[in-house]
């Protein structure tokens, strides 16, 4: 015979089992491939215990275009437009990394003006890409589109400058092996001066709006934490690595295009959480503006493209060139067999490798935190899938 007390105890046990997860079935939730928080066609399969993430597994390949195979049948110059489409939010950085690798194979000397122009556009690209990264990250944290569109105004001005220089806004195809495709147009430098004059006030506005924001702190502080040792062991790079306190920036460690001549700092975080990644990106925009100021003041004259044959045939060999793209360490590994096309064309994609630690960052947090973590890594699916 059951008493009322027994029934009450049994019910209490059921409720405890449901709320603590004992005996309850885990729920599998698919985020994506068409989901606003996944920033592209990317699927995250999350196993949930209540609200807590037990396992996070990513499914990728929806945007796989087999670029590494296609590039083996095209000449070195014909491959430059492919690199735009690898990371379409940082096309200039991808152009630059590929051209550096091809120049290493061919032994090409780049004129000083071309190097300065390359630095200028790589840094403008970083400003534009970080505006996108921070804007969508704040969006994921729940600020519905207002900060995103404030930051998009800056990005729009950068894309206007790209358009007036090379005619394209997103897939720029501007760098060439041995320099850049066109010289700067007359109207670029006044536009850039105006941009540099306006940006400090804009950044101060964003900081006043966001840095003390209670909701942002609640959503991003202490979320998606990773230790510096784990970050290095997982081959993370870029702002995700620097947010853990490791001052690793290829512009300082292995300067290319004359970065050693410019004065800038490498901002690092302390806790390695989502908020630190956001702070590092905000600080990097300021450093990029510092570099841009120095480039504009010391722009050398002269040719902007070295004399390189269109169908260049490098000697058999290999090269691995890396740049600090907005997302991290972007490398191109090229193998030549002496033919007009690369024998092997490999891109080291920072977006893909930064996702290695997504599972470790997400497990134990809530589902909503996993979305914030994914937003803070700043992935570009074109670069993940290639």
């Amino acid at each position, binding site marked *: 015979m059951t008493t009322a007390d027994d029934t009450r105890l049994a019910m209490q046990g059921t409720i405890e089992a449901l709320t603590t997860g004992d005996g309850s079935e885990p729920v599998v939730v698919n985020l994506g491939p068409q989901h606003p928080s996944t920033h592209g066609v990317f699927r995250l399969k999350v196993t949930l215990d209540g609200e807590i993430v037990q396992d996070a597994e990513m499914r990728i390949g929806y945007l796989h275009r087999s670029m590494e*195979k296609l590039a083996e*049948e095209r000449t070195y110059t014909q491959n430059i437009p492919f690199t735009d489409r690898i990371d379409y939010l940082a096309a200039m950085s991808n152009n630059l990394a590929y051209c550096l690798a091809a120049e290493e194979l061919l032994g090409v000397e780049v004129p000083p003006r071309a190097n300065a122009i390359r630095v200028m556009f790589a840094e403008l690209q970083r400003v534009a890409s970080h505006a996108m990264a921070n804007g969508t990250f704040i969006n994921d944290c729940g600020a519905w589109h207002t900060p995103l569109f404030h930051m998009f105004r800056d990005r729009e001005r950068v894309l206007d400058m790209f358009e007036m220089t090379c005619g394209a806004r997103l897939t720029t195809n501007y760098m060439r092996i041995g320099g850049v495709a066109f010289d700067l147009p007359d109207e670029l430098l006044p536009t850039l001066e105006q941009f540099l004059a306006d940006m400090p006030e804009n950044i101060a506005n964003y900081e006043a709006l966001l840095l003390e924001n209670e909701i942002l702190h609640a959503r991003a502080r202490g979320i998606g934490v990773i230790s510096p040792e784990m970050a290095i*062991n997982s081959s993370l790079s870029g702002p995700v690595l620097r947010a853990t306190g*490791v001052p690793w920036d290829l512009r300082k*460690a292995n*300067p290319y295009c004359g970065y050693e001549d410019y004065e800038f700092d490498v901002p690092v975080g302390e806790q390695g959480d989502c908020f630190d990644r956001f702070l590092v990106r905000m600080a990097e925009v300021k450093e990029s503006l510092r570099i841009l100021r120095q480039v504009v003041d010391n722009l050398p004259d002269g040719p902007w493209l070295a004399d390189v044959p269109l169908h260049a045939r490098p000697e058999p060999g290999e090269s691995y060139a890396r740049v600090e793209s907005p997302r991290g360490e972007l*490398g191109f590994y090229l193998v030549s067999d002496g033919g007009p096309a690369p024998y092997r064309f490999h891109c080291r994609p920072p977006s893909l*490798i930064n996702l290695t630690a997504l599972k470790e960052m997400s497990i134990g947090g809530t589902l909503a935190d996993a979305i914030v973590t994914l937003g803070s890594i700043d992935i570009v699916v074109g670069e993940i899938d290639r």
Partner: protein
Amino acid sequence: MTAQYDATAAMEIVNANAPGAACVDAGILFLEPERLVEAIEALRDSEESDLIFLSNLTAVDQELYFEIVYHLQSLDLNHILQIKARVTDREDPALPSLTGLFHGAHLQEREVYDLFGIRFEGHPDLRRMFLWDGFPGYPLRKDFLQMPGQVRAGLPGFPHESEENAWPVPGSVPQRPMHPNDPQPEGELVVAEEGEESS
């Protein structure tokens, strides 16, 4: 600037811990595939080399063998080392996984498995990554499919489309086809004599 770490110094570190696992050819460090893990562990843990960051991991199909290429970086000492390992078995190429040493090898090894069909023994989650399970063949192999305008030989279509589309007999070494840059055979070019009209 990031210096290139001396391959001979790296060979000495490896051979002190795993005798005979490393050799140097033309300034490049080659490792024995069977002893890859202990060799790279020695390079990672040695204070002189300190190669704690796996920058890049990829493979190259050299037709007679697969070449697995590792780029390891030291953050404190700021040098980089390129390491290669060769696998000759085309039917079932395999070598040990580095996931026990570097968490960052996870997705890069999966990518190589997906596109080259090289198995990494000990990888906890070795599945296809970009392509679906059951995709016929491994696209980045040189004998995958004949692409438009391709100078190297490949299959005319996918194997499941026709019985004629079969890869080279398993175990046989594929022959590298003639490349325009290869030395041309002598005596085949007919040069018109002086005064004679060339056809």
